[in-house]
């Protein structure tokens, strides 16, 4: 459901540019997909925040890899909840991912 955002990051070399493209795609998809809008918006916001915070900064290749792993983790949790199909599972995953983002200072 949300893997296309991870694929976008990979296709664009996990760069700051990649996160910008990922954010644009996420926001567009959120607008066009009412039953997954909150999750898509959250992931788009995460990608946008990463690009804003790290653009032109001395970020290392290992920092980029760590961010990619974290982003993929959020996507996996949301994928699982949306596959499960229950509203309760989706809400729980949204809250969990939003909490993790807040703790990481990502938003």
């Amino acid at each position, binding site marked *: 459901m949300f893997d296309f955002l991870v694929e976008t990051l990979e296709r664009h070399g996990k*760069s*700051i540019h*990649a996160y910008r493209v990922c954010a644009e795609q996420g926001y567009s998809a959120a607008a066009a997909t009412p039953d997954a809008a909150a999750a898509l918006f959250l992931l788009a916001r995460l990608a946008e925040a990463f690009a804003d915070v790290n653009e032109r900064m001395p970020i*290392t*290749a290992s920092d980029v890899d760590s961010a990619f792993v974290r982003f993929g983790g959020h996507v996996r949790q949301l994928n699982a909840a949306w596959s499960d199909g229950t509203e309760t599972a989706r809400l729980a995953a949204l809250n969990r991912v939003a909490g993790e983002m807040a703790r990481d200072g990502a938003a």
Partner: protein
Amino acid sequence: MFSNAFADRGLVAEMTAKMLLEVNAVHFNSDRPYMFTSGIASPVYIDCRKLISYPRVRETLMDFSASLILRDIGFEQIDAVAGGETAGIPFAAWIAQKLGLPMQYVRKKPKGFGRNAQVEGEITEGQRVLLVEDLTTDGGSKIRFCEALRRAGAVVNHTIVVFYYDIFPETKTMMADHNLTLHSLATWHDVLRVARKQGHIDANTLREVEVFLNEPLEWSGRNGGSTRLM
């Protein structure tokens, strides 16, 4: 106002490189490569934002910039100076002051609505605006800022930076495709020359940096970065 003599181009490049090294704006680390915005991995990183904290350094660099603008662009060819958010703004302000010109700045993203949503300050139709930024790697941000200024009615044909990486042949071609001429005070080749002369970096790091500067995409690919400009 601009009060300096027209310094020799080679001297400008050498002095700029010396100042960048002196204020520790240049970082070398081949073991833990840096990642450019474009995804290119690099053993070198340069932070021109540090320059604003050194008055004698920034004053000299802005005099160099003013002389370069007058010599290469012309005395009456620019009507205003625009800084790119964020790092370009202080340099644009100092250059505008030296040349006695109005100033604007360009946001990375539009704020509000309308054709001027990305530009702060007064801008008039047909105004010839010089875009100022601290540095250029692949030139992508210059194009985006330039397009925003053009949407607001400006004529933008020139951009100036303190530091130009000068390692991707595509940069100047891409700028030319957008009718934009890049002017700069120094490049990596100048910094490397001075660093070597002053013994700033050890021989191993120096070799690695040279390999990167000669074949940046190949070096990037071997060190976890992208192998093409995106």
